[in-house]
């Protein structure tokens, strides 16, 4: 007997979680299976919709206005602007700790390298750091943390022309953490607010952190830290440190392992759990049965192949980074259902000579019809009950456009909703 559900979503990243959530909201019996840790831990945790056009125009103030002019192959064009907005609403309901829904205008956020980037939604923890906010800013780095050199980030931010003064200072983090402590160690210490020794006196960690920063603060009205301020209680930590300093505190999103990305993943998994979906993580889908329709898929668990069957399937396994799209010297392929991935025959046509050139590989993924069903080489749908969502989709370069999260959320929403409607 196979494990049965109405909608089976494969993939636990932003696309998969959103499709499962959308399908559950439609009242379907949903099951989500995911294999490895999602790529959210690699991502900044910011939710971009569209920052630049494929021609490089931008930063765009309003992402929705630009969508109708995107190329037809773009996933946004498959689902349409209204769906993008509806999908963002679903996201806003599921993750109330994010901001940006008060306006259609993009926000500009400082990055940990010192640039700024356009984004549509941002965690509350980043909101005091908006680059269009004119308050003077102090950035605080940690001596041992090589990913965030505050004086360098501040100087780079200044070079982008931000409308405020910004300075960087470096402190020694309170408590005796190892030189190569992981970001989660800093977060844990602040979460538990354990006492640490400061000049021979025991002080709770949040207060100790503020004490380190206090003498460095001049007239700045806000203070930014790398995104290490807690995993479980970030709001309380920001409040406590901010109260001690008498300023607003914010986090600058970081590269992997990214706490904002992990917090977002947690929030979406909780929302999905609340919506009543069944969730299985840690085991890969390795095989399937079916010709025109997928009958069942097999999940490998401790060496056994467990059949899972559903009426409708959503493929949300990611792109090259998440391994939903793979390649070898001979070509590019989708590894589970072997869906067609259009690509140039000659490997040397996959990329450009410049680092930030117009790389074809960045747009590789499955092509779909307007119902998000993957198409084979002759443009017929591969399977009548399979839809694709997120980075497994081709036809757009999320990195250049800053559109990754938006496409995942919009196509996940559309695929999940339609799968649920069809399963009923």
């Amino acid at each position, binding site marked *: 007997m196979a494990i049965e559900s109405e909608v089976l979503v494969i993939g636990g990243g932003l696309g998969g979680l959103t499709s499962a959530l959308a399908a559950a909201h439609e009242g379907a019996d949903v099951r989500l299976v995911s294999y490895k840790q999602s790529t959210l831990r690699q991502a900044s945790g910011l939710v971009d919709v569209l920052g630049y056009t494929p021609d490089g125009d931008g930063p765009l103030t309003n992402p929705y206005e630009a969508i109708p002019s995107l190329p037809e192959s773009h996933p946004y064009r498959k689902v349409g602007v209204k769906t993008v907005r509806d999908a963002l609403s679903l996201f806003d309901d599921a993750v109330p700790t994010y901001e940006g829904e008060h306006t259609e205008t993009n926000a500009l956020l400082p990055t940990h390298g010192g640039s700024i980037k356009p984004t549509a939604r941002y965690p509350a923890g980043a909101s005091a750091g908006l680059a269009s906010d004119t308050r003077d800013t102090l950035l605080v780095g940690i001596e041992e943390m090589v990913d965030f050199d505050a004086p360098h980030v501040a100087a780079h931010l200044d070079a982008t022309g931000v409308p405020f003064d910004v300075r960087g200072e470096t402190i020694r983090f309170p408590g005796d953490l190892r030189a190569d402590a992981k970001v989660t160690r800093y977060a844990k210490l602040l979460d538990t607010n354990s006492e640490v020794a400061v000049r021979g006196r025991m002080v709770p960690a949040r207060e100790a952190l503020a004490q380190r920063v206090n003498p460095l603060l001049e007239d700045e009205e806000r203070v930014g830290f790398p995104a290490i301020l807690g995993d479980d209680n970030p709001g309380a930590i920001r409040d406590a440190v901010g109260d001690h300093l008498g300023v607003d505190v914010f986090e600058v999103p970081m590269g992997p392992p990214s706490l904002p990305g992990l917090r977002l993943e947690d929030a979406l998994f909780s929302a999905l759990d609340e919506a009543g979906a069944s969730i299985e993580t840690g085991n890969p889908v390795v095989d399937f049965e079916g010709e025109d329709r997928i009958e069942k898929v097999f999940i490998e668990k401790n060496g056994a192949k467990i059949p899972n069957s559903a009426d409708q399937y959503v493929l949300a396994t990611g792109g090259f980074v998440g391994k939903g799209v793979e390649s070898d010297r001979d070509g590019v392929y989708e590894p589970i259902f072997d869906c067609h991935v259009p690509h140039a025959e000659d490997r*040397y046509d996959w990329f450009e000579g410049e680092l930030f050139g117009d790389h074809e590989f960045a747009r590789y993924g499955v092509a779909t019809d307007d119902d998000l069903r993957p198409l084979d080489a002759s443009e017929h749908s591969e399977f009548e009950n399979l839809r694709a969502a997120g980075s497994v989709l081709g036809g757009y370069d999320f990195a250049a456009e800053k559109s990754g999260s938006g496409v995942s959320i919009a196509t996940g929403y559309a695929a999940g909703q339609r799968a649920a409607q069809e399963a009923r």
Partner: protein
Amino acid sequence: MGPTPHIAVIGGGSTGAGIARDLAMRGLDVTLVEQGNLTHGTTGRMHGLLHSGGRYAVSDQASATECIEENRVLRDIASHCVEMTGGLFVKRPEDSEEYFQKKLSGCEECGIPAEVVSGEEARAMEPHLAKDIDKAISVPDGAIDPFRLVVANAASAQEHGARIETHTKVTDLIVESGEVVGIEVEHDSGPGKRVHGTEGGTEQIRADYVVNATGAWAGRIGDMAGLDIEVRPSKGVMTIMNIRQVDTVINRCRPKGDADIVVPHETTAILGTTDEEVEDPEDYPEEQWEVDMMIDTLKELIPMLEEARTIRSFWGVRPLYEPPDVGSDDPTDITRDFFLLDHDERDDLPGMTSIVGGKFTTYRMMSEQISDHVCGKFGIDADCRTADVPLPGSEDFSVLRDYMDEFGLRSPIGRRSVERLGSRADEVLKTDGPNPTVCECEGVTRAEIQDAIEGSGSDLNAVRIRTRASMGNCQGGFCSHRMASELHSEYDESVVREAWDELLQERWKGQRHALWGEQLSQAALNYALHATTQNRDQDPADGDPVDFSAFDTGRSQASGVDSADVAADGGTDGY
């Protein structure tokens, strides 16, 4: 004796740096100029094999004998650059038994310790060797880090008073009254350490003698004085694997051929190579089939290479030279011997000698002979000491053992740092502040990066070759911004940004030849980290001004509440 002669050495590869060290140690005034970084040309683009001589034991016994001699010298004077991996010449069933025997006796004739091992024994040493390897000859091949070696030679030359100018291109030879009397150069960013964004300038460097040690570029320098130096550049591809499939150098035991060697190197293994004549040492095709051939041919020796991950490929050009009357058609026929072209004797133009041909393993011996030649010009009778005096970093390698004890260096990072630095470990690693790891793939710490910056200015590629930072699996995806930040304490942000871009682009260049499978996934991740997370592709600091007021100023400001009175977050559910 009159005043100390001033020698201008052109070329910062192994030979040029070796000559600069040798002459400086003999008390001469030396200025070395290099158009790029040290090792920019051929030296930085080789597979890092320290020849035992086995490779030449059949075809060129004179070279083979030189190799084993110099192999022993370098183990001694450059121990922190050498890993004595040992090497195997392996024979497949289709390879000739006669050649195998010739190789064996050739090694014996050249004084190269060689021993026959059975196929089973060879596989016991190297479990990933193909099951049908018949047998092998074991020889003392090793791996050597050409970057570290050249940097150490240059450092030693500097300690003896030499001036080293990188990123300095020779634009002309100064010829007066039928004699070369100096060089005209263009500094990329002013003399001294390279600093991005600073203006360069031209300089006339007058010299009593000029040594042209530019290898494949020797003809270019010759042209400047109307000299005809017929170097025949020959390209070869090398493909870097992300792990060491073997810990021993694996050579195929057959006469010359493409794709017949695998050299383990630090955390990687390097597959090599091809041999194809090209017109221009700087501009030649780098093609997919060459990379594919490396993998498809060498998998006959090590089958797992078929599925293994490559992290990049690079091409180098050999500075082959043959005297005008030989006329070989095939570059593999051209001797690997070196030639000293005294332009006074050869072309009636006194004041300059060119050195062409030769092999990396014998760079020191070549340097000695050139230095003897130069000293002879001035009647200087000074002994060469380069075979006896260890290079900086290799003075006292017991330091490695001391460090293990003193700092309890169980950590593979500390251990690798000390191995790289050799006897300089103490001076570099004893810092006041914390010393976090900047490059995780290669285990490079802040102290090493800072030491390299001190040596090479704002040039992150120079930092890279000194430390190996950004040369591992991620090819700089996770560490390039960290390396850039390390510059910031000393250099302005715009200088840092330029150096950072340059490093990223250099790392991308070689990776392009490895973009399938795991490395394409890595490239996609790196691209996402740089473009999505950091927006480095559209960085407003490099582009048009942004109208900040047109963007979201935040929920509180949008709703008209004074932001100063509002907590930074909504305060709900713990976020």
